[in-house]
């Protein structure tokens, strides 16, 4: 099992979150002059697990000409998605433990790909973990603006007076 968020870590995060606005001179109740992006605090995964998820989803859908899964917030999507679903949460956490036990974090990029490939081709729990992680990554990435609009070029859900359909000579 990976490390659980400790009380000390939680306090540290909370302290950082409250300290920043003060440091920037923001008065209580006043509109902040500077938007401060606080790092996402995972609710269903331990920090180490969350870091692992971030790395893994970015291997499944990496950045190319468009940003990849981590930049699209898929790690956070997964943390939120497994909330209240103990079976799924268990599968994800067990899988993360298994991949960490196989030394994932200490491997270089190439060996990480080899290890994840091994998982993706495995029967049983390892294979199921990979497919679940891949499914969640696909759902999260291709429902984000980065994945659906920027990467795939989705142009829908807008106002069209007429729908003419296919007008390509070569299809008709």
């Amino acid at each position, binding site marked *: 099992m990976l490390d659980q968020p400790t009380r000390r870590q939680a306090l540290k995060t909370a302290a950082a979150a409250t300290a920043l606005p003060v440091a920037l001179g923001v008065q209580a109740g006043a509109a902040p002059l500077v938007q401060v992006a606080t790092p996402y605090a995972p609710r269903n995964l331990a920090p180490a697990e969350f870091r692992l998820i971030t790395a893994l989803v970015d291997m*499944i859908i990496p950045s190319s000409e468009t940003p990849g899964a981590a930049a699209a917030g898929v790690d956070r999507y997964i943390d939120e998605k497994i909330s209240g679903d103990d079976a799924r949460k268990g599968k994800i956490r067990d899988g993360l433990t298994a991949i960490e036990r196989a030394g994932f974090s200490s491997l270089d990029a190439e060996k990480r790909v080899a290890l994840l490939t091994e998982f993706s081709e495995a029967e049983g729990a390892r294979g199921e973990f990979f497919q679940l992680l891949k499914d969640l990554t696909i*759902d999260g990435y291709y429902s*984000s603006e980065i994945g659906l609009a920027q990467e795939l070029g989705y142009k829908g*859900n807008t106002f*069209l007076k*007429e729908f003419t359909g296919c007008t390509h000579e070569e*299809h008709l």
Partner: protein
Amino acid sequence: MARGTDYDVVVVGSGASGGMAAWNLARKGVKVLILDAGSKFNRGDFWTHLSPWQERERRRQGKRPPQFLLSREEQPYEWVDDRYFDLWRVWGIGGKTNIWGRVSLRYSDLNFSEPERDGWEVSWPFQYKDIAPYYDNVDRLIGVNGGDDDEPWLPGSRYHMPPPGARCGEVLLKKAAASAGRTVVTGRRAVITRDHRGFAACHHCGACGKGCDTGSFFNSADHLLPFAMETGNLEIVENAVVGRVFVNDEGLASGVQYFDRYTGKEHVVPAKRVVMAASCVDSTRILLNSKSRQYPNGIGNGSGVIGNYLCDQVRFHMPAFAPQLMGRATSNDDGISGGHIYLPRFDKPGDKRDYLRGYGVQFWGGGCQSNASFAKKLPGFGLDFKQSVKEHYPALIQLHPYGEVLPRASNRISVEGTPSDRYGVPLFRIEYDIGDNERKMIEAMYDTAEEILHEMKAEVLPYKRGEIDKFGSAIHEHGTCRMGADPKRSALNGFCQMHEVKNMFVVDGSAFPTATEKNPTLTILAMAWRASDYLAEQMKKGNV
């Protein structure tokens, strides 16, 4: 109309069938009360025009769009062992027309008289010529778009609005089907493509499933009930969960018991005539629970057929990719959401086949969708995978055959030995399975899908032949209070009037003797219109 006045007719349910009956009766001067188990879904609250990422952000803020579906926590039901039946129920004004698929296909005499030809169960007690004028009426009233085709299994209409153009993938599917000897026709959908009765034409945002905020597809809550209210002859009680229908000494319906959905308070409204329109399973549950000295098996159930012969359709979903469209520039393919084409049933009476009845094929939407869930079945991960998803994305086509499930006495809804709900009304159990006939038909459905995709040289995602969607996924339940000519084998006559209880009518899908291969709502609307015409006429004559 003041609350509590004498109602001529009490209608249970406000979806396609109840909305139609209430509207038609009210405009004829009949005083109508609707009892619906839910309340109105506010069009202004729909999330129609949110992108997937905007939706996610709203959910993060703890917001939710209107919840159309009744939860199994609020109203449980039972099924047998591993034969789960996924029943979709909407308790709310307009019922399932809030979120229906809008496919609007006429049934033909080949459907109505098929049981007579193949000897399986009972035929419909009317012919196409009897219902055709009502199909015409419904097409004109609700606005159905479609083509000018007229097929043996799919009679044409002179009243279609202009259809949307076929998407690239649909054009290619149509060509491939023709090469395989199959005639694909223009789809028929109850989406208005021209301004109609005060409603704006569809603006092609493709989000119909989230509820239409402009009311541009037929929904009983917008397209029937407000017009009925204007007559001053309709009153609606919301959140009225009907439990039972009571009878008098003559064995006629005399009152309807309902419970406030939220307080549980019991009410009984006197009723001179009752029209059941709560959808197939819910109406049947009420009928079976309406036990009395005269009707120990449920009101109007001397024949014992009520609850039995539950039938719907088997279907599966086969996504594939058109090679001609791989990697093309993306386009807005929303259209009217769902398929713009349809492959009607094509067998001919007398064809040699190893199963009864048949199937038609829908194609749902194709091309660029608001998700890429197909990617879950593409192999690998990493940059190559990402590129592969992008190439496949605009090339998506989808085949979706629907095959008729035979009516069988063993497929049934019952209320014996079930626990009661929070109002003290027995819940129902669904016993359902398919048989050899359906399994053989499913093979033929796969053959047809494969033939078309083979002609197209399409890339098909991995699938297992014979697999079908969950029972109930068609959301086309029928048969549990069927009409027929023989009172020993049916509960209703051809006007949806109970053989045994002259002031009781059942006008929803439960009245269908067969499921057919088609989507039922257009026929439910036509049948409910015809039945309520008959009811008004009989009232005038003093017969009911």
